């Protein structure tokens, strides 16, 4: 099995160095590291079908045991690779019609791409760790004096602000007189007078709105409406007017009663 023509750019670091800890498979039809097997399988240089899945699993388990005993960290990713391999093989054993999408070849390609990327990162990690590192290769000053900035608050104010503040405290806490502003209202007396005199003009029904001063402000109209209503009730009570309403919230009508007639 030749490996000289392999275009592997980034073999996992321990494989590139022939790391004795790497999983080295000796299977029927294949002998070598796992990563390479996958690459060759994809390139159809090796027939996965000819590899005994049992032998693979056996060797894998032995490897895991040994790695565990050596406290190697390799186990986890090799487990994944081996699982992939087993899956791949079982997929390839299926008749074409029953093969799932993606095809085993695509799976192999995908697995190989993943291994390449992981290999690239392993090599990058190794190169990173080999750089001149602080505390190992280069050193910063052992006993720096340290820089310190002491912050000090300087308070600022001015005389005018002080005097103004005092004036405000004084003004705020001084005794206060409250005024209630005059509001436009129609007193009951003036409403009574107004409604009585207007009722005197006609015997027809009049709506209560007709009694309101025509040019009043909305506030005065509300007051006049209330006062006129009470005035109308008062006139009705005195037997001088009658009140009618067709239903709730319908216009309230008022009419003068002839002298002597009961309400």
């Amino acid at each position: 099995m030749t490996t000289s023509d392999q275009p592997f750019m980034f073999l996992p670091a321990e494989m590139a160095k022939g790391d004795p800890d790497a999983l080295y498979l000796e299977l029927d039809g294949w002998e070598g590291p796992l990563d390479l097997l996958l690459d060759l399988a994809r390139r159809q240089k090796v027939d996965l079908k000819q590899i005994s899945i049992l032998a693979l699993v056996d060797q894998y388990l032995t490897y895991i045991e040994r790695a565990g005993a050596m406290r190697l960290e390799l186990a986890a990713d090799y487990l994944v690779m081996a699982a992939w391999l087993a899956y791949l093989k079982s997929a390839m054993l299926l008749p074409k019609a029953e093969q799932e999408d993606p095809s085993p070849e695509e799976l192999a390609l995908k697995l190989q791409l993943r291994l390449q990327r992981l290999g690239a990162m392993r090599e990058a990690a190794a190169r990173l760790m080999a750089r001149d590192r602080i505390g190992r290769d280069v050193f910063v000053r052992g006993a720096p004096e340290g820089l310190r900035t002491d912050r000090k608050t300087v308070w600022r104010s001015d005389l005018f602000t002080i005097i103004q503040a005092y004036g405000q405290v004084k003004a705020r806490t001084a005794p206060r007189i409250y005024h209630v502003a005059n509001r436009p209202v129609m007193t009951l007396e003036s409403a009574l007078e107004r409604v009585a005199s207007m009722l005197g003009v006609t015997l027809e029904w009049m709506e209560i709105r007709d009694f309101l001063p025509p040019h009043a402000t909305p506030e005065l109209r509300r007051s006049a409406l209330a006062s006129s209503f009470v005035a109308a009730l008062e006139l009705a009570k005195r037997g001088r007017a009658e009140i009618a309403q067709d239903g709730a919230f319908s216009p309230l009508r008022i009419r003068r009663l002839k002298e002597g007639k009961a309400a």
Partner: protein
Amino acid sequence: MNAPPDEEPGTLERAVEATLFAAEEPLSIDALASHLGGLAPGDVRAALGQLEARYRTRGVHLVDRAGRWHFETAPDLAHLLRREKEQVRRLSRAATEVLAIIAYHEPVSRAEIESIRGVQTSAGTLDVLMEAGWVRPAGRREVPGRPVVYATTPVFLDHFGLASRRDLPGIDELRAAGLLDPVDEAMEAALRFEPDEIDEADAASDDADDENLAD
């Protein structure tokens, strides 16, 4: 002691320089010699002399302290290590009022300040005024509880350009100047204070207070 500083440093000089730079404590000539792989103390001494001369004009000096060598900041630059940064802040509204009350009424206790302001005064407010150096405790009032009374300081008069407390305008003058105008206007003026200058606790109690007084 006579290395011209314009020559490239030799290997030993560089090694001594790096070792002293990275060392966590001053090193003796013997310690340096053994650290550098068993050099002759005389060679180390020569390298130290060259380094010392080279650094003499720099911001960092190589100095011998009781036979042990280390780098330290040049004495004329020591002020760079401990810098004081001044931060100017405007007095909060609450602190301004308390300061004004103390100035007009001193000596005055905290309870009296609160009764004049109509709101509680946080301890921090008085601390700020004392930190500024404008207010000082001025003994205790001989009443039950013996409360501390506060007064202004000469620094206060100085900062606010007053020859004496008698220079503070009186109530009548304040009224004439419109400074006793009704609260609505005073409120507006107060709201012109930037809110973040008022410390939160004070701002909250001020607001509650102002609401009670508002129409």
